[in-house]
C-alpha cells in the first residue's frame, strides 16, 4: 500500500524515521514551513530555513526514496513580531514561485490577534497571485472560535474553498467545516489532537470525501508512522484498500495537485538510481543525458 503524509516536519526527524517511513509504504511527504519551537529573531533565519526545506531536506528524503515537497509561509506565532513579519512577507513571493512548493502554509491563527489577521490575509492574497492552494492550521486553544474565524477569513479573502485545507480538525471542529467546501485535515498526534481509533470513527461517520490524514510529526513527542497506522486500522475496521488509498494517498495529492507542481503519476513513478542510470544508459552507449531529472 502506498501512503502519502501531507503534513510532517522532517527537519526534526532522524534518518531512522525516514527508513521506517519508507518501509511502511510512505512514498511522499509535504513539509509545511512552521516555527522552530522558539521564536526566530530575524528574517535571515527564515531564509535559511526555507532554503533548508527546498534543498537539504529534499535531498535527505530522496536518499530514502521518499519524494519531499513543501509549503511556504509565515506561521501565526511569529506573525506577532510585526517588524520581522513584514520582512518575511517581503521575501515570501520568491519562495512561492519555486517548483517544490505546493501550497502556502501553514498559516492561520494562534492567539487570534490583529497581527495574525493581517499575516493570514496577506498570505491568502499571495496564494491567489501564485495560484497555490492554502494549508491553514487551527489553533490548539479556543479551537472552535479559531475554526469559525478561519472560515470567515477564507471567505473574506475570496479564496476558493476547494483551494484550502483546514488542518488539525477534531470531533468538534470537523462538523463546522463540512458545509464550507474546504478539504478536511486531521493530525494524528499522540496525547493532543487525534488518535487512530477516533480518526477511523470520524471516517465511518463522515465518509472519505475530501478527508485527509497526517502525522504532523515534528520535534515534539509524535509519530511519523501515524498515516500507515491509520491505514492498518481502517483495513481492520472493514474499510477497503481503495478507501484507504483514497484517504491516505490520493486525496492529499489531489489537493496539492491544484498547485500544478505535483501529481499522482509523478508520485507513483518508480524511483531510479541516478548514478546507475547514468552508468547503464550512457557509459557504454556514449550518449549525453546528464542524470535523470
Amino acid at each position, binding site marked *: 500500500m502506498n501512503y502519502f503524509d501531507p503534513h510532517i516536519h522532517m527537519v526534526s526527524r532522524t534518518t531512522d524515521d525516514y527508513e521506517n517511513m519508507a518501509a511502511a509504504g510512505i512514498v511522499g511527504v509535504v513539509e509545511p514551513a512552521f516555527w522552530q519551537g522558539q521564536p526566530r529573531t530575524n528574517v535571515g533565519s527564515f531564509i535559511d530555513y526555507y532554503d533548508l526545506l527546498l534543498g537539504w531536506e529534499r535531498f535527505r528524503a530522496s536518499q530514502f526514496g521518499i519524494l519531499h515537497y513543501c509549503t511556504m509561509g509565515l506561521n501565526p506565532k511569529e506573525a506577532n513580531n510585526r517588524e520581522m513579519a513584514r520582512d518575511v512577507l517581503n521575501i515570501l513571493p*520568491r519562495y512561492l514561485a519555486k517548483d517544490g512548493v505546493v501550497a502556502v502554509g501553514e498559516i492561520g491563527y494562534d492567539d487570534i490577534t490583529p497581527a495574525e489577521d493581517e499575516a493570514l490575509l496577506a498570505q491568502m492574497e499571495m496564494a491567489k497571485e501564485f495560484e497555490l492552494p492554502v494549508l491553514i492550521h487551527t489553533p490548539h486553544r479556543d479551537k472552535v472560535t479559531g475554526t469559525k474565524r478561519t472560515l470567515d477569513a477564507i471567505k473574506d479573502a475570496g479564496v476558493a474553498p476547494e483551494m484550502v485545507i483546514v488542518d488539525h480538525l477534531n470531533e468538534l471542529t470537523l462538523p463546522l467545516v463540512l458545509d464550507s467546501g474546504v478539504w478536511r485535515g486531521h493530525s494524528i498526534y499522540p496525547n493532543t489532537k487525534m488518535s487512530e481509533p477516533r480518526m477511523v470513527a470520524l471516517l465511518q461517520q463522515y465518509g472519505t470525501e475530501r478527508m485527509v490524514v497526517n502525522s504532523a510529526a515534528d520535534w515534539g513527542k509524535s509519530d511519523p508512522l501515524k498515516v500507515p497506522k491509520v491505514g492498518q486500522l481502517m483495513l481492520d475496521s472493514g474499510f477497503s484498500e481503495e478507501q484507504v488509498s483514497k484517504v491516505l494517498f490520493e486525496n492529499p495529492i489531489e489537493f496539492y495537485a491544484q498547485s500544478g507542481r505535483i501529481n499522482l503519476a509523478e508520485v507513483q513513478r518508480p524511483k531510479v538510481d541516478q548514478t546507475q542510470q547514468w552508468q547503464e544508459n550512457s557509459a557504454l552507449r556514449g550518449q549525453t543525458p546528464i*542524470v535523470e531529472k
Partner: protein
Amino acid sequence: MNHYNRLYQALAQQCSEAAIEWLKQALNAIASESDPTAKHQIASAMAKRKVGDQAVTLTLELMGEEPREICHWSSADCSRILLNLALIDTSDKPLTSLLSEIYAQGDERERAALLMGIPVLDPDAQWLVEAEDCCRTNSLLLFSAMVMHNPYPARHFSSRAFNQLVLKALFLGLDIAHIEDLQARYNSELSVMCADYIDERMAANRDYPASIWLAMRLRDCRPGTANLLADCLTAQDVGKRYYAALALQHEPDEQTEALQKIIKQQAEQETDPEVQAALTKLIESKRL
C-alpha cells in the same frame, strides 16, 4: 550570433508559442524595470513550469572553442541561463556577486542550470573560487552539472581542485568518461589518488569504479598495478573490460609482452561489440 541570441532562437524554434511569449515578457521585464533582480528571481523560479522541461538541441561556442552541439540542457535550463544572461546584461553589480546571488537564491534545478551554463555566463572564470566551492555540494545533480560534459573545470580549475573533482565523481559512482579534457589535465598526482582509492575499496572487500583507469597511468603507479588492469581486461563485468581497453589507448608507454598477449587474446574472444571495437582500436593505434 552571441550566446543570448542562440539560446533564444533555439527555444523559439523548439518550444510552444505560449512558452516563448512568457519568456519574452520575462526577459523584457528584466531589461526594463527598476528592480531587475526581483523580476529575475520570480521568472527563474517559474521557468520550468512556463517553458517546460523537454530536451533542446543547440550549437554554441563555449569559451571561444569550436562550436559544439549541446543536447543535455532542457528548455528549463536554457531559459534559466538566458534569464541569467539578461540579468547580467542589465545589472550594474559585478558579475561575481550577481552569480553568487543567483546561486544562493536558486533551488536545486536553478542552481544546476547556472552551473551547466557557467561557460556561457562566466567564460573568463571571474567566479572561479565560488565555482570550485560548488563542487563541495552533496547534490548529485549539482555536481554533475558542473562536472559532466562541462568544459569549464578542465579549462579553469586548479590541479588540486580538478583532481578532487575527479575523485569525488568516482566516489559518487559517476562515469568519469564524461569529464571533459580529463586526459589533457592528467597529472601523476591523480594516479596516486586513484590507486589509493582502489586499495581502499579492495581492503574493504568492495569493488571499485570501472572508469577509474581513465584517470591513471601505469608509469605513475606502483608495480603490480598493471596486473590489476590486466585482470580488468578479462573481467566478467563488461564495463571493466571496456574501460581497461579505453585506458590502455591513453597509455603513453609500450606495454609489457605479457600484457600485449592478454590484449590480443581478449580481442579474439571478446563478445561485446563495443569492447571489441575498443580493443581493435587499441591494437591498431599501438601497432600490437
